């Protein structure tokens, strides 16, 4: 029971209380760009969740080794990057060999793997000294945070798209950035 509670608490913390995208700025570029392509959002969020959970789990498992835990921060960071790279290669190989999927889809998986949000999760877990289950929860929370962020920004973008009274200079990214800034302000209430 405690295990599930830890997992849920960590994921809720990362996705809502300390939303990685709005409060931290991680993956905000991907969130803003994907908000303009909502049809591809949910599958992309699934891939990002997969990568963040897998990488978090592997890095948290490595942290349990005393020799690894005692190493410097620089060593940790290098290993985390290597883990992301390795997970991507293994996933890509599995998809190419077993899945009936076109090779060009692999670049979509690369977007989900190599972004600041997925890369930040193991670093945050390490700095916050999360347990194994909390790390997995943080990985889940990162995917959920991305989904929530893109949904909210997409709603705003739809409103801005329909709004004919936006000044000419603010049409497009200027108004969108300010909208996202106000969303970020809203999420600071729980920080």
């Amino acid at each position, binding site marked *: 029971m405690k295990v599930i509670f830890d997992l849920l608490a960590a994921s809720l913390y990362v996705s809502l209380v300390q939303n990685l995208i709005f409060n931290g700025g991680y993956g905000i570029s991907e969130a803003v760009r994907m908000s303009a392509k909502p049809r591809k959002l949910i599958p992309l969020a699934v891939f990002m969740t997969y990568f963040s959970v897998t990488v978090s789990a592997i890095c948290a498992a490595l942290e349990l080794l005393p020799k690894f835990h005692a190493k410097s921060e620089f060593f940790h960071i290098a290993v985390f990057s290597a883990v992301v790279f390795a997970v991507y290669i293994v996933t890509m190989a599995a998809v190419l060999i077993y899945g009936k999927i076109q090779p060009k889809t692999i670049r979509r998986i690369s977007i989900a793997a190599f972004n600041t949000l997925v890369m930040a999760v193991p670093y945050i877990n390490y700095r916050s000294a999360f347990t194994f289950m909390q790390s997995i929860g943080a990985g889940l929370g990162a995917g959920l945070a991305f989904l929530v962020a893109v949904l*909210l920004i997409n*709603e705003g973008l739809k409103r801005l798209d329909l709004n004919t*009274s936006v*000044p000419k200079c603010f049409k497009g990214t200027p*108004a969108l950035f300010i909208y996202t800034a106000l969303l970020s*302000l809203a999420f600071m*209430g729980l920080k």
Partner: protein
Amino acid sequence: MENFDKSQKPKEFSETRKIMLSYICVLSALAFVSVFSYGVRALIIVLISVVTAVICKKICEEISKSDYPHGDLSGLATGLMTALLLPVTVPLYIPFFMSVFAVVICMLPFGTAKNSPFVPAAASFCFAVICFGEKVFSYPLVSVGVLETEKAGTALTSLLYSGTSIKLNPAVVLEILTGQVPSAIGTGFIIMLLGALVFLLIRHPKNALPSVAFLMSSALFAVIFPRIRAGVLTSLTMEMCGGMLLFSAVFFMSYPSVIPSRLLPSVIWGAVSGIVCMAFRHFGNTEESLAFGILIMNATASLFDELPLTRKEKKKIDDSIPYEKTQEQSTVVPEEVLSEIPDLSEKEIIAQQKFENEEISTDDLHTEFHSENEITETKPSFTSGGDGNE
């Protein structure tokens, strides 16, 4: 809107102006009572906020060169709302910056007041809370109508935040209802705010219903999850009368640009907003984090419009579509026209039969019938010099 004729003001402009006028009437009454209670300083704060908001709005309208008609009174209403959220002891630069924030950041980039996705006054309050912290929550003591600015009072929200309750008796309730407890300039006069709600319900029922739903769900939340252990009634009184909950219900939940366009979704949205705002109050990092919840719910308002239509709404839509009777003469086809219609090929006959049996879609039928011309849609190819005439 580019070739908009300013002399013909659109319907949404007059609707916005109407509701802003109602807000101004109520807010002016609140401001007058606050000046009476808190003295000249309250008047100065209100004037700074209002003048700044109106001037900023004017400048923004000139900069944006909008074709939309000016004078929807949103600047004036925003200035009044911003001022009434602050305590009387607040430094004078804070209402100035709040008004600038509300107009320049929450209104200018989005065009008109009808289209701003967030309530400007709520956003400016959040800005002030983050930037100026304690200054926004330092209330003076009010005792028997006398303002003692040198003594710090403890607001109901502060007591709730620290888990302290009050002893509820008729005298205390009367003090709470008449604004005798430490609070912001315009949020303490509970009777006046309730009167404002009734006024809005009569004049703008569609806008005020979410406010009622908001209050009901907040009250339910306060009863089920009390922050203090002094009984249901005390918790309910402190939560509903403390802070800016009632003020938000009256002015923020009825703001025209943020509520869903349909009635039932707007009521549901109001109810959900109440729960979310109370959750922010419980788990927020300041004694009054309700405004942050308001901003979140402003962002999700359009999601509620996507709820399925009710039977009544469907019927209304069906009734609004003009019904065209099929004429008998449609069966009478002239010979000259008929003579030019070629016989259908075997392929086309099969396709038509499949379409009638719903085995293929209209697009497939279209491609079968127009396969002779073979006009196809190619995948997008980007030009290498895509800047206009370059």
